[in-house]
């Protein structure tokens, strides 16, 4: 099917919703993403209620201040994404490129900090594996009693890991959109790609606020 026909299909007079196909499709896809994270978060809730002894007080194992900064970064990247979309709505291609680049860099920084965090935590024995879990408290990484249990590590890595994968995919998509924007592919009348990737990016951000709360703060 040629691009011309696909483009006309988006503009048919029809008794549908007043939303173009790509945007509708992204909303529907995000609903299925909600269900995916629901399965992870639901498992977490059930495991934590069943085995409270596997968890410890917030901040004793996980590095909350570092992640709080990281959370702030991710929220900032949503702001820059909004600015990028606002720029192209005004037809400002330079602004679009600038804000997209900012979003990409902040998103990549988020993933990078998450990797650093993972390496530090696994070095302290906070791993998902049943057999090698031996987390020790913050401040005295070489002594002190083991904290929490393997379910803590397993659910932590499952939830934050899949979120990190979503951020990484988002960054890759943003790079794709950025390259296209450098070629001048988006204008005030043709900004569907920017809006759709923006929806995904805001969703990933929203999920993180939820995950940060339940994984790190509770």
């Amino acid at each position, binding site marked *: 099917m040629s691009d011309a026909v696909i483009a006309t299909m988006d503009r048919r007079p029809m008794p549908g919703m007043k939303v173009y196909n790509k945007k509708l*499709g992204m909303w529907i896809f995000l609903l299925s993403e909600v269900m995916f994270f629901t399965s992870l978060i639901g498992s977490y809730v059930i495991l934590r209620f069943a085995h409270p002894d596997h968890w410890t007080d917030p901040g004793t194992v996980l590095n909350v201040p570092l992640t709080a900064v990281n959370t702030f970064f991710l929220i900032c990247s949503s702001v820059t994404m909004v600015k990028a979309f606002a720029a192209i709505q005004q037809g400002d291609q330079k602004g679009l490129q600038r804000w997209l680049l900012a979003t990409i860099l902040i998103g990549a920084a988020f993933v990078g900090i998450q990797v650093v965090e993972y390496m530090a935590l696994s070095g302290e024995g906070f791993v998902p594996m049943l057999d090698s879990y031996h987390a020790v408290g913050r401040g005295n990484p070489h002594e002190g009693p083991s904290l929490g249990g393997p379910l803590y590590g397993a659910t932590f890595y499952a939830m934050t890991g899949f979120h990190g994968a979503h951020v990484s995919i988002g960054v890759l998509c943003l790079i794709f959109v950025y390259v296209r924007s450098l070629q001048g592919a988006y204008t005030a009348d043709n900004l569907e790609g920017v809006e759709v990737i923006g929806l995904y990016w805001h969703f990933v951000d929203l999920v993180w606020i939820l995950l940060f709360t339940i994984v790190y703060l509770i």
Partner: protein
Amino acid sequence: MSTTTATETHAEHVEHHDLGFIRTYIFSTDHKMIARQFLFSALMFLVLGGLLAVMIRWQLGFPGRPLPAFIQWIFPDTMAPSGIILPEFYNSLVTMHATFMIFFALMPLMAGVFGNLLIPLQIGAEDMAFPRINMVSFWIMPVAGVIMLASFFVEGGAAGAGWTSYAPLSTSGEWTGVYMGQILWLVSLIVLGFSSILGSLNYVSTVINMRAPGMTWFRIPLATWSLFITAWLLLLAIPILTGGLILLLADQTLGTAFFRPEGSGEPLLWQHIFWFFGHPEVYILILPAMGFVSEVISCRSRKPIFGYHSMVLALVSIAFLSWVVWGHHMFQSGMNPLLGMTFVLTTVVIAVPSAIKIFNWMGTLWRGNIHFDAPLLHAVAFVSLFIIGGLSGMFMAAAPVDIYIHDTYFIVAHLHYVLVGGSLFGIFAGIIYWYPKMFGRMMHEGLGKVHFFLSFLFYNLAFFPMHNLGVQGMMRRIYDPNQYEFLQGLQPLNTFISISIFCFASTQIIFAFNFLWSLRKGKVAGNNPWKSNTLLWTTPSPPPHGNFPEMPQVYRGPYEYSHPDREEDYWPQDEPPATADAGGQTAPAPTLEPVPGD
């Protein structure tokens, strides 16, 4: 407006002649070609699943007897030394039969084939909302299928923990003797999940956004309605399964303990995740067939469908209820009795919309001008077998009864009444009914009838006695019931069932022959062989790329059969209403404007 689209569609049509073999037949973005691709691959998996079932019944009908000499050579000593099926291989057979039938045969046959074929044609769209995503959604399925098939050839054999893969049985090869096979099973289903999600994303978007002018929500044919509702269920249920499969895969490969009790994991959590997906899945496997049957019954009895709105509402309410009943699979797993009672009630409530549908089908048939051809016969068989399957479901919905019959052959009988008697007969009805649109030729009517009557007979001979086996205590998935003294008396019945299954399986050769023979030699169908109303039948058979020469305008619902003011007993949805000389009884011509409220 429609002229622009028409020219462009035409241009596209011309352009497609230059696409070459690969873009036309292999990596096609045309929804009708993708439907055909799904059809052929899913039918192959259906045959494979059927052969696995035959092997299961060989073991149960003739325990310990070597397989016939001419197929013994296929199986290495790790599966069936000197033709005798090993217990471990039997576990794999049971698991893979269910897996292939559910995920690789029934789901692609319903959502993949008919979702692709019917949705754009019935709502008057040129193609899906996202043709390229549609192509990707098909090509994921054979990849997953190959991974699943490969598991037969790895050390330890294919997965053997049942299609439900209950933890802790599935968490470690120590329990089943299957290591790599279980991992491949998990990977394959995770991959396949993307196919379902991408496909259903497409169906939902297409139905919402791609309808032709005048195609309001309550003028959408019931087949498309049912596929639309099914797509929602897939979209929301599959990610739950994917999440659970990933956690189980982590338990298998990384050494986590989400579901492993030795590490304080929760085996029951797996059951909750699985059945929270699994019960919507059950309706994913039956709702499309309900839609096909509604189309066929209305068309072949030349009457408007009885209670169109209640049919739609029943579909929607079944879909909603399917999310709150999963616990009825777990009465035996240990549950607060109060919670069990809740699940009993929600489950029993599903009988209401199901009964509404059944009475509506009967109301449609009642005093209709019934044409007893192959699609109608299959559709009526669907209704009657679904009643039996639905009623046996009521037994299981009641926790006290379920605790007695749980995991017995009563369950096997029930699910095969719903999935074979229901879904498969519905699929047969659909294939025969829409075959002319897919391939331009009719299937042979006489062979179709022979296939139907033999199938119906052997099907019931095979599966009805299973209720009896179950009530007498024969366990589901048991390798050799004769190891228990109290089951030894059931051996003659088991042998009888096995022979009936062999006959049922052989009968499908007639269908396969009919299907292939009609591709070349069937009667040329023309646009509208069944004299049906939906937009689908206004297109040439098979429809060209772009489907409609110009954008159709819809004036009425899809089931206006035998209208008293008309000579013909059907009234296509896109036929403009006659002017005032028809007695002023016709509906006013709708405009291009969308109807308010849509």
